């Protein structure tokens, strides 16, 4: 296997063993990022700093100093996660020149574990989008077929991992923004339980839904990055009061008598046939390893999108009210005689792209006087019902298996209607609404217009059951290796 398509764990082990140099791996990733600039995965890379850090790791190894768990491994960071180095733009004109005065806790912890931040990745503006098309710095392409979207909103992170432009990446997931692009790009994407990883330094979109998570080329890599990033943080009062996870050392252990539930509502005829086939093949792979596969009932699956598109825009309209052109961000020019309200409104209208403005409008409307109870309060009531329904399902099974998205990657421009785009999130939003954990991993392919496109499946587990989730995912990854290993993205050559 070419070094750029090894997973992070393999690279790390070979660096530690002296078989590969961190410097060479880093140089290769940077060279490939330049060579594949057409993917538009990165907004910026930190070549000099990354190479220096990689050389220090090689020197440490040569000197026999102990290496931390992610020593010398390049990690790409979604551009809504604050880094002191470079800019944090959220792929928005609003934050075009924004330089964070601090590092996000997740970034700080990855670096403490030895990781090298190689660059910032392009995304749908403010994490609002499912295609990577709503990016101020140009759309991101899918390494499997550059006529198609990589998914979103963690578009550049997914493309960079799939094309070998980094060892691993982090993204953020508010309604599927890690898992859906992972599915479209043939990689692993983990949305941890709400509260597992500090949100300090993650630019707020939907504060009760947002989570940072790893995007990797293997399940064991996801475990390694989760272990490094999780745990209490005094700067985020919504982090669960739990110790960091320690799953990487246990992820290879299969789960005895695993019970896998397939929600009947997930196996819709509206899914592309290869999507349902990937779920069936996954069920077979589980059975072959002694798991029981049962059908479960989640009748509220269908109202997830409606619930999500109340809660997320409502929270976004409130969170994005801070961008007023005064303290930071884009400031428009006003003419003498115009008032402060004009300065705010013009700065916001110039700074935010159409999808962001649409969601702010939607959220503002639903929170406005006379509509609050009918929309927001009702959605929060449905949210509790969805959570209770999930809890009931998890009483009879350990993990839920289903599609990540109804289709493989779609061509650019094919979901121009906002509502059509929103409906793509049907299988991922309820994970965030219930605050539980979910992972997408590769499970097959669909051939479209001569290109092989990856198809992912999703596993979900109840809150703080990441160990169970990742061990089950590792079983599935092992069981599907022959089926999944057959192809690789042409752009990773």
């Amino acid at each position: 296997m070419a070094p750029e398509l090894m997973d992070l764990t393999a690279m790390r082990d070979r660096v530690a063993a002296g078989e590969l140099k961190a410097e060479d791996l880093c140089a290769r990733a940077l060279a490939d990022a330049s060579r594949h600039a057409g993917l538009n995965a990165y907004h910026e890379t930190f070549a000099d700093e990354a190479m220096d850090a990689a050389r220090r790791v090689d020197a440490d190894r040569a000197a026999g100093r102990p290496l931390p768990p992610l020593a010398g491994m390049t990690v790409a960071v979604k551009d809504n996660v604050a880094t002191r180095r470079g800019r944090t733009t959220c792929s928005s004109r609003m934050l075009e020149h924004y330089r964070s005065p601090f590092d996000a806790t997740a970034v700080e912890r990855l670096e403490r574990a030895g990781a090298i931040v190689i660059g910032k990745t392009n995304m749908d503006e403010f994490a609002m989008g499912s295609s990577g098309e709503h990016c101020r710095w140009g759309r991101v392409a899918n390494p499997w077929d550059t006529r198609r979207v990589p998914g979103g909103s963690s578009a550049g992170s997914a493309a960079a991992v799939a094309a070998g432009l980094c060892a691993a990446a982090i993204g953020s997931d508010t309604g599927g923004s890690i898992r859906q692009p992972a599915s479209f790009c043939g990689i692993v994407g983990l949305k941890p339980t709400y509260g597992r990883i500090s949100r300090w330094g993650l630019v707020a979109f939907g504060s009760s839904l947002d989570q940072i998570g790893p995007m990797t080329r293997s399940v064991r890599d996801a475990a390694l990055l989760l272990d490094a990033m999780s745990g209490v943080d005094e700067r985020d009062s919504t982090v669960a009061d739990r110790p960091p996870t320690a799953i990487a050392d246990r992820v290879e252990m299969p789960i005895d008598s695993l019970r896998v539930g397939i929600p009947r509502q997930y196996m819709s005829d509206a899914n592309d046939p290869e999507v349902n086939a990937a779920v069936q093949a996954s069920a077979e792979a589980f059975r072959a390893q002694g798991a029981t596969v049962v059908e479960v009932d989640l009748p509220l699956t269908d109202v997830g999108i409606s619930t999500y598109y109340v809660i997320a825009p409502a929270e976004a309209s409130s969170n994005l009210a801070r961008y007023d052109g005064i303290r930071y961000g884009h400031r428009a020019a006003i003419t003498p005689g115009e008032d402060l309200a004009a300065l705010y409104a013009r700065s916001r209208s110039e700074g935010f792209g159409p999808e962001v403005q649409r969601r702010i409008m939607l959220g503002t409307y639903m929170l406005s006087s006379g509509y609050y109870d009918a929309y927001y309060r009702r959605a929060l009531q449905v949210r509790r019902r969805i959570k209770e329904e999930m809890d009931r399902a998890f009483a009879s099974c350990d993990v839920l298996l289903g599609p990540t998205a109804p289709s493989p990657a779609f061509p650019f421009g094919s979901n121009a209607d906002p509502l059509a785009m929103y409906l793509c999130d049907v299988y991922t939003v309820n994970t965030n609404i219930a605050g539980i954990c979910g992972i997408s991993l590769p499970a097959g392919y669909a051939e479209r217009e001569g290109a092989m496109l990856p198809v992912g499946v999703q596993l979900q587990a109840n809150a703080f059951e990441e160990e169970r989730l990742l061990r089950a995912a590792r079983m599935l990854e092992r069981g599907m290796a022959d089926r999944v290993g057959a192809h690789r993205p042409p752009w990773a050559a």
Partner: protein
Amino acid sequence: MTDASTNALTAAQVAHVARLARLEIDHAAAERYRGQLAAVLGHIAKLDAVDIQGVEPMAHPFESSNRLAEDEPTAGMPVEDLLRNAPAAEGRFLAVPKVLAEES
């Protein structure tokens, strides 16, 4: 909320929401939003079919009590670091354009 009259937003409603949202939206954009928002609101009407009788709203994934920090002073961020991102600054202050009319 499901009746046709609320899903069919009026131009005046869109203008009102834009004002509340502090967005400056021209006529063409307002018309576009009118249709797009109505379509999304129409879809959201699915919520009406869910029985929510007596269900407590769930604003947050897990119910936890407030975690309080020790009441000890800590260093804030240096003013210079924060002003680095200001669109305009004068000394240690944010600068804004003149927005108040002259007293006559």
